[in-house]
């Protein structure tokens, strides 16, 4: 292991420590310097595409991109100056010239507000470099999950990189350069015909809403504000942390928790998109009991609990306490399983309990 002790540089005049291998951007982030960027995703290799993260380095003739410049002992870095801010504003105006509009609905994706936030911060003149544009939108892609509005694309390549580096799927790539740049699948086809698994990672890292969450945007006209609640995905055993997006009493979308301990920002197609079942009309809304004609009919809680208690106890009274068997769920919370086993153990003194792990 390399010795990291005692490594320091000067950041805006203050001596700060760093770890070997860290970029100037990472050191600055730790010291809340709030350097602007559009192509940076902390989970991915630094790329240096947008140049907004430039800083001044004593001894260097021009500003350097802080994300791709490694910290070195004794460096003297200026993260903010009038000259830097002027450069950043011009760079931003060039990037923004790619976009027809800058207002992006926050439902579009986790990072979707990054560009609009910077445009506001720098009061960037979005029409200053109007003219050429790259990217042709794929309105013909009928997939129900990922909007491919490439007219909004600023060629930061975050989607391409997240698909390769984070997902390992390599479903999308970059075709051509300059104003002909196009994010595309191999052979320029539909996502469903590519290696895409619809995990939604490209949506969540896109800083402009060019790639956007079609399912969440179904609720874009709903008036209420978006609220987020941290929970855990209901599907497999990996336990990915998610932020449930709600408007009022409705779940409108899911975003991965970037600090989720099990998933660190990743999700799959089910965790990302398979949530409509929660509000499906088929959901049971009342208890049901079987009536004298053998039909299951709605009932009150009182009636259902009494009937269930009586039915279970009748078996126990007639055939003994080993005639009742409980099956706990591998899908319900720990509290459910705990109480299921307590029901037979504390209630009947048996261990006639199992869960769905054997089949």
């Amino acid at each position: 292991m390399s010795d990291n002790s005692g490594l320091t540089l000067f950041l805006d005049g203050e001596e700060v420590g760093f770890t070997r291998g860290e970029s100037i951007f990472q050191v600055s982030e730790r010291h809340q310097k709030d350097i602007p960027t559009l192509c940076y995703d902390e989970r991915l290799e630094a790329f240096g595409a947008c140049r907004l993260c430039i800083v001044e380095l004593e001894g260097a003739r021009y500003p350097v991109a802080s994300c791709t410049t490694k910290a070195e002992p004794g460096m003297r870095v200026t993260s903010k100056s009038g000259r830097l801010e002027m450069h950043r504003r011009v760079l931003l105006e060039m990037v923004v010239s790619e976009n027809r509009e800058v207002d992006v609905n926050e439902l579009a994706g986790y990072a979707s507000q990054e560009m609009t936030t910077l445009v506001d911060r720098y009061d960037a003149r979005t029409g200053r470099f109007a003219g050429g544009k790259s990217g042709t939108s794929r309105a013909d892609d009928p997939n129900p999950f990922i909007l491919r509005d490439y007219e909004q694309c600023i060629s930061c390549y975050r989607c391409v990189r997240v698909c390769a580096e984070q997902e390992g799927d390599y479903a999308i790539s970059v075709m051509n350069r300059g104003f002909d740049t196009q994010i595309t699948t191999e052979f320029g086809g539909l996502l469903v015909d590519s290696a895409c698994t619809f995990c939604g990672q490209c949506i969540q890292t896109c800083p402009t809403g060019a790639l956007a969450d079609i399912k969440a945007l179904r609720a874009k006209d709903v008036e209420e504000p978006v609220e987020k609640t941290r929970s855990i995905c209901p599907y497999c055993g990996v336990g990915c942390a998610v932020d449930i997006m709600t408007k009022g009493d409705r779940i409108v979308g899911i975003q991965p928790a970037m600090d989720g301990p099990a998933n660190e920002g990743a999700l799959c197609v089910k965790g990302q998109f398979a949530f409509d079942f929660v509000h499906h009309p088929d959901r049971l809304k009342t208890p049901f009991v079987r009536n004298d004609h053998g039909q299951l009919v709605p009932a009150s809680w009182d009636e259902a609990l009494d009937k269930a208690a009586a039915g279970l106890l009748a078996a126990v009274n007639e055939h003994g306490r080993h005639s009742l068997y409980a099956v706990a769920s591998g899908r319900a919370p720990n509290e459910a399983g705990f109480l299921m086993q307590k029901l037979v153990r504390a209630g009947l003194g048996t261990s006639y309990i199992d869960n769905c792990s054997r089949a």
Partner: protein
Amino acid sequence: MSNPLKDMEKPDVIFCIGTNMTECHPVAATRLKKAIANGAKMIVADPREIGLTKLADINLQLRVGSDSALLLGMAHVIHREGLVDEGFMLDRTTEAEAFLKHIEEFTPEWASEVTGIAPELIEEAALLYGRAERGAIYYTLGITEHICGVDNVQGLCNLALMTGNIGREGTGINPMRGQNNIQGAGDVGAIPNNYPGFQAVTDPANQAKFSKAWGREIDHENGITKVRALEQAGEQIRAMFIDGENTVVTDPDREHCERALESLDFLVVCDLFMTETAEFADVVFPATGFGETDGTQTNTERRVQRLRKAVPPPGEAKPDWWIISRLAQRMNFKGFEYSGADEVFNELCSLSGTYAGLNWDRVEFGEYQWPVPEEGHPGTPRLHEDRFINGRGIFKLIRYRDPAETIDDDYPVWLTTGRRLAHYHSRTQTGRSEGLDYLRPHETLEVHPDDVAAWGASDGGWVNMSSRRGSVRIRIESTTRSPRGTVFSSFSFNDVPVNVLTGSGYDPVTDTAELKVCPVRIEPAIEPTGD
């Protein structure tokens, strides 16, 4: 899992067996892809050509149900080539000598006969794993859903023990748990042989502890498994309470299962939907689901995490803890006066050694992986680091056994079942979520193109597939993902109830069903019309 998920980025040799991870645990698979990008080598053993196959350095396409033979053959080569970790075996294991003698007879040539894998490939895989600095094993139900599931797991343990690939970063024996809280269901004691925290029912100390906690005598013997309970339905078992399981669709041998539920005097089901199983019930309780419940669940790496309520439930649906405790109260059972999930979880922690250092507040950010034996303990991301819970790792002298049913003239094709990326289990949730059917609208039977031709069937055409228990009609998908002589389908679609066919046998120790092996006969059929 013995090791944390983040360790999946650390091995130099990965051995995946019986796990279709890119479809069933896609987010975990991304970590393996990162390890491979950083230079790790991967061995994949699976009867089918799955997503992982494309990423593997060595592919072992074994005949379904022959896993234990492969593992014995690999152990033989590792021993023969002097790749055993003698220090580890001496310091940390027992029965090592007997084991090394035992595996002498299981040559790669013998394993090749059983598995259908070339002996050179078995040698190559054994050498790769045997020489690993950090070798990690990952498996799923492809290992356990066999009549020899316990033997298979022990075969994997033998490999890890003989090479010292356990208790260190990037190593381990790592079962990927299939359901969001299947780990938790075992942790909390919803099994017939353990109290919460895997405290054995048959241990007098535990018997005393829990009879004191709950103020009554509790049987000193283990209960019976669900498999046995369903067998005894209508006889010893007269009533059942099933929480959140679509037993009829997901259990083997559907007809047997339906008969069992029908023969009960009384059935109570608690679920989100009127499932095929709920249709058999006398009382159905509406439960809250994802985003509607405060609670905890425990993932495959033993991490306890909080669930939070974001929206109100539909109508009068209630959380499971409320339903079960109120039912218990109506049955005049004592000790069910809870007012929230937090109280239930805190009681669990007070009774479970593995959760003893946790409480509702401490699991707020999901930082802890059990065991957390006392307050202030940081949790245990990696098991078996300095010692095994029982002191020493025990080698088990396993042998190969044929599946419960093997192919013959009447049923000449192997059927194996599993999941698909876009759907989950009986589709009660993914089938009711917009868009997933775009990716997978209906079930197909994956058949090798040569077999499709040989059986006089066609790609997209229909066949009848029959086992000794029943028959289903299914559409053919011609694909080299299936090897010749083996076909695959999921059990997710109710119009192709594949579990009508399965259920040939059960592991004698765990009663786990042999869902991964079912000999079938396949005959061309006409397309079904209407409903």
